[in-house]
């Protein structure tokens, strides 16, 4: 039997409270991970630098600094450049997904997601 997975710290950035809460339930209860949340791109940048999470789950469509904009800023800051970012998006166009991966995203997961499977999907995308 393999040893239990290491505890991971994941930052969720989404302007929608409902999504933040469901992601938190999924990753904390199912994955057993520590979950931090931010409700905007700007807040996400600050928390990412301060808390140094193992990964960031980033919404695409947000007012103000949107997902791709946040990713660009994270990548430009040496304090956050090495943190893998996974987009969580309700838009499923292939072309857009490719653009985001080109921007440096580690992967794209689709909303709506199954709360029972999200942690597994995140772990798969990141090779955990």
């Amino acid at each position, binding site marked *: *039997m*393999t*040893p*239990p*997975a290491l505890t991971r710290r994941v930052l969720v950035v989404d302007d*929608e*409270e*409902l*999504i933040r*809460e*469901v992601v938190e*339930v*999924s990753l904390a*209860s*199912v*994955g*057993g991970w520590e979950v931090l949340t931010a409700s905007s791109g700007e807040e996400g940048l600050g928390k990412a630098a301060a808390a140094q999470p193992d990964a960031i789950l980033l919404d695409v*469509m947000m007012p103000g600094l949107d997902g791709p904009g946040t990713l660009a800023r994270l990548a430009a800051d040496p304090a956050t450049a090495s943190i893998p970012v996974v987009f969580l*998006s*309700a*838009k499923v166009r292939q072309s857009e997904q490719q653009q985001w991966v080109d921007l440096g995203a580690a992967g794209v997961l689709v*909303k*709506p*997601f*199954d*709360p*029972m499977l999200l*942690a*597994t999907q995140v*772990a798969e995308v990141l090779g955990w």
Partner: protein
Amino acid sequence: MHDSAERADVPAVARDVAAELQALWGRFEGQLLARVETLEEALAALVDARLDDDLRRRAERDAHRLAGSAGTFGHHGASMLARGLEELFAGATPIDPRAVPDALAEVASLRAELASTASTGSSHADARPVVLIVHRDAELAGEIGSAVEARGLAPEVTEGVSGARTALAGAHPSVALVDLGDGGDGVLDLVRELGARTPPVAVLALTSGTGFLDRVDAVRAGVRGFLPASLAPSELAGAAAAIVEAAQLDRWRLLAVDDDPSVLAALIALLEPAGLVVSGVTEPERFWAALRETTPDLVILDLDMPEVNGIELCRLLRADPRWAALPVLCVTSHAGRDTIEAVFAAGADDYVQKPLVGSELLTRVTNRLERTRILRVLAETDPLTGLANRRKFVDEWNRLQAMADRYDQPLSFALLDLDHFRDVNSRYGHEGGDAALQRIAQLLLERFRGEDVVARWGGEEIALALYGMTRADGVRRVSDLLAAVREEEMVTPGGHSFGLSFSAGVSEYKVDGDGLRDLTQRADEALSVAKALGRARVLPAGERTG
């Protein structure tokens, strides 16, 4: 959550997550419904040609958010509908007013689906059928649980009878895999309780070769089938999955063809709450393959597909002898006289006009299915007794024989013949004979359930297939029936009463023959011996003397 050490906790985690999601749904349900209201408001404005950019942007955004969140609570249909509506409101080019009727129907379906949440949606994490596993060996039980999980079912692993009762307080399993041991420790009481639940839980008994278990007692308690405890966990899980699938097979299956996913989603949202199983095909070239895979009871064809001619598809379907009798319902937004004529000329059974209204669609679908059900029952049932007819019995026997081979279980055949039946007919008339046959059929159906098959073999002969039963088990169960029949008083429509008995022979698959033909012959021989010995007795095949 990947390592096997934590797997046993999965059902518990699933329950916790389900409870948390339910609480979240309670908090956010109003927010989601408010978004549906935005969509309704925007469509109303569109109808009145007063949709401004601000409302249109809000509608697009709210549709987007609904698409991203509804499915998380199990409302995948709602998410698909919302995604279609998001596309409608996206961009800046004026919206085609012809899209409005469909959009209104989609919003109505979306609202209906979200409203149905209270009972179903929020228990999303628990939506998988539950398989209760009661086993004395905790390690093995865990392995069976993992195998069940791998089949997409939710295992509920318990040790012993009291653990099972605790688990039953919080879950309703579809199937129970129960290690019966020697039948002690109140395990048969547990089996009885499982069978008494609504709906009844199908119990598959695990039996070891060494333990002394009375199978007839187990069947009386309600055991539906027997599996050797030595089977691999994956095979046990497979047997449980087969039962769950069979329960699904009892439901009506529909195949809907529509190139528009949002219309398909609306169909599913309208029909699935009524217990129908709807498969959708968005690519018409997949239609024929889907027909063979799903063997539907009814097909719903959209006539408004741009690439495909639904009328032509219907005509092709009717030309194929395999599908010529399959009910076809057409859906169209152009219900002009010409279209309606073309629909019926192509052989469709009915049509429904768009926008789809739930109650109308459901009524038309169920009317069609009800007629199919009647025809099917007529084709498989003996009209006098309500028992299966010979043709149906042969189909069922073949299925049981395959099961017996696969799970290495005994299977027995019994042939019953009513004693002195000709006298009954001549003394009380055919009405008297018919009444007696009907009463006996009733007694049979009360006593032989689950995997047992009871059929009228012809005249006053009745055939039984007894899965999991050896020849000796079969003789005991049929003897039980004989005792009950002899205690009964048959009453003719004319008010005469008389007693009745039967003689029977029982043969066992692989012991007395390798197919139904041999087994019928051996059982018939035993039956003749029983008659010669003075009737009213049940004999195993091979016995030549009393």
